[in-house]
């Protein structure tokens, strides 16, 4: 919402356009620059984008969540287990026969979202009620949640996810054109963009990160607001979990381990301040796309895979440096 963001938004967008332009030139025609590749890139970025929307709000408000990867895994386990258990007996599943498919899918999705939101509430209460710094609180819950998921599943991928869930939803497309993951990521992003930039809730989110005491004195219920942000982020983990189970027809304990840091990187690259009070969803969209674009481009260019990490790291450093310069410029006055 604050206007001075526009400059850095434009900078990061230009950087993305430049990266796309370079890859388009140096790769064989019809490989990188093609509709189907754009679809692959968006598909890869969609989960990160959804999680990054939650992290954008949290960072702006002065919070942090390192447990989103673990919550996603836990929720995915819930989704996969519930769906597998309700769809039919093990014997029926072995024949790929699922008598209660509709109920199973509906209940599993609801459970996944609720469990994600529930863990988010735990984070929120730890950070707000017990006043544990969010870095430590969510680091700890991340470990606990992942540990419980591991104990529950014995570290095994969860089996017996009904195959139609993957074939019709995970591999399915809206109007046979846009994969569902991308559609859902777009809807989530749009909702979060509107809430952040158009509503009282969004304004208060900025105010809390800019000056928590000022927001409190102005009558913002800062504690409830912060808890809600953690709950919302947890619910987003639930959404990603549903998409993950749909795509891979399993819940893997080892997936998503780097999600928290990837999301923070994407959000910061997109111009959101690590110090709170500043940030925009539009920047986050660009920030979440950059790693996926670099991955696709480097693979297609046949560049050593590790260069992708180098490139994302460099972009992240530049983004944080710009942020700090801004803060210093402000403190000087």
């Amino acid at each position, binding site marked *: 919402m604050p206007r001075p963001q526009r400059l850095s938004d434009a900078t990061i967008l230009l950087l993305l356009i430049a990266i796309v332009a370079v890859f388009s030139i140096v790769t064989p025609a019809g490989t990188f620059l093609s509709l189907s590749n754009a679809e692959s890139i968006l598909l890869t970025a969609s989960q990160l984008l959804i999680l990054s929307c939650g992290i954008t709000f949290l960072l702006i408000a002065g919070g942090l969540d390192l447990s989103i990867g673990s919550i996603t895994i836990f929720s995915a386990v819930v989704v996969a287990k519930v769906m597998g258990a309700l769809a039919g007996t093990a014997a029926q599943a072995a024949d790929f026969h699922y008598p209660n498919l509709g109920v199973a899918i509906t209940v599993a999705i609801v459970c996944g979202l609720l469990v994600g939101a529930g863990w988010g509430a735990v984070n929120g209460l730890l950070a707000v009620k017990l006043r544990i710094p969010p870095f430590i609180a969510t680091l700890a819950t991340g470990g606990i949640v992942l540990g419980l998921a591991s104990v529950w599943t014995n570290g095994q991928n969860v089996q017996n996810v009904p195959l139609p869930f993957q074939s019709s939803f995970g591999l399915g497309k809206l109007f046979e054109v846009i994969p569902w993951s991308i559609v859902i990521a777009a809807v989530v992003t749009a909702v979060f963009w509107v809430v952040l930039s158009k*509503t009282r809730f969004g304004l208060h989110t*900025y105010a809390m990160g*800019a000056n928590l005491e*000022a927001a409190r004195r102005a009558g913002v219920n800062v504690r409830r607001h912060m808890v809600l942000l953690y709950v919302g982020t947890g619910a987003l983990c639930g959404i990603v979990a549903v998409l993950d189970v749909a795509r891979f027809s399993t819940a893997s304990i080892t997936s998503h381990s780097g999600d928290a840091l990837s999301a923070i990187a994407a959000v910061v690259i997109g111009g959101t301040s690590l110090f709170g009070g500043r940030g925009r969803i539009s920047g986050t969209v660009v920030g979440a796309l950059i790693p996926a674009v670099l991955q696709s481009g480097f693979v297609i260019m046949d560049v050593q895979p590790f260069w992708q990490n180098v490139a994302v790291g460099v972009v992240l450093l530049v983004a944080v440096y710009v942020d700090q310069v801004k803060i210093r410029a402000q403190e000087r*006055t």
Partner: protein
Amino acid sequence: MKDSADLAVRVRGVRKRYGHVEALRGVDLDIAPGEIHALLGDNGAGKSTLVKVLAGAVTPDEGTVEINGVPHRFTGPRDAQAAGIETVYQDLALAPTLPPDANLFLGREPARPGLLGRLGFVDRKAMRAEAATHLRQLNSKIQDLGAEVGSMSGGQKQAVAVARAAMWGSALIMMDEPTAALGVAQTESVLELIRRIRDEKGLPVLLISHNLPDVFRVADRCTVLRLGRRVLTARMSDVTSTDLIRAMTGADTLSPTGERAAEPR
């Protein structure tokens, strides 16, 4: 003595004890409508506790507070705000990454009409327009209404905070050391702003300050506290800075005009 209904603020016998320390020992205070009233006193005299009582941040153990003749008992800052009292704290309580309009309306954002408003949508256009009008009325020197408040000068930040108080206050504006951190030119513009609140909005201002020259330039009357009690209330035209310093340090409890400290006017 004036009828209490004619006073904007009337404080009587307010006591506040923190453990063994009695911060206020039966303080009285009278603020007339539309006056700039300075609150003076050495450190520990009870100024900030009295301000907190009026801001609703502290509930007194004893005593009464009347606003425009109506008795009030504040149990929180919201109560004081509801009674029309706004406070500009020394830290200004601004959100530095937000523009002036968002700061002016923080916590009281206007909703969009209709369904959108009920969904929590903010009417940014109205916010910006009202903020512009209001700032113009106070003749503040803020040009870019879209700039982050954090990027503004100290005087401009002060102006935003004062403007916010003036915008929402209807009974009293309190300012805690508004010029403490400012340079000469900026101090001048803040004092001008304080006068404008009185002249344009007709609101009384309670000014807490250590800076006697500033007080003499802007205040109509003053009250001096010492050790939790009122020792002097006088028109600025009736006292000299020596009188005030004596009152603050306890060298004399009588004003040069012979006015009794306990009796205003």
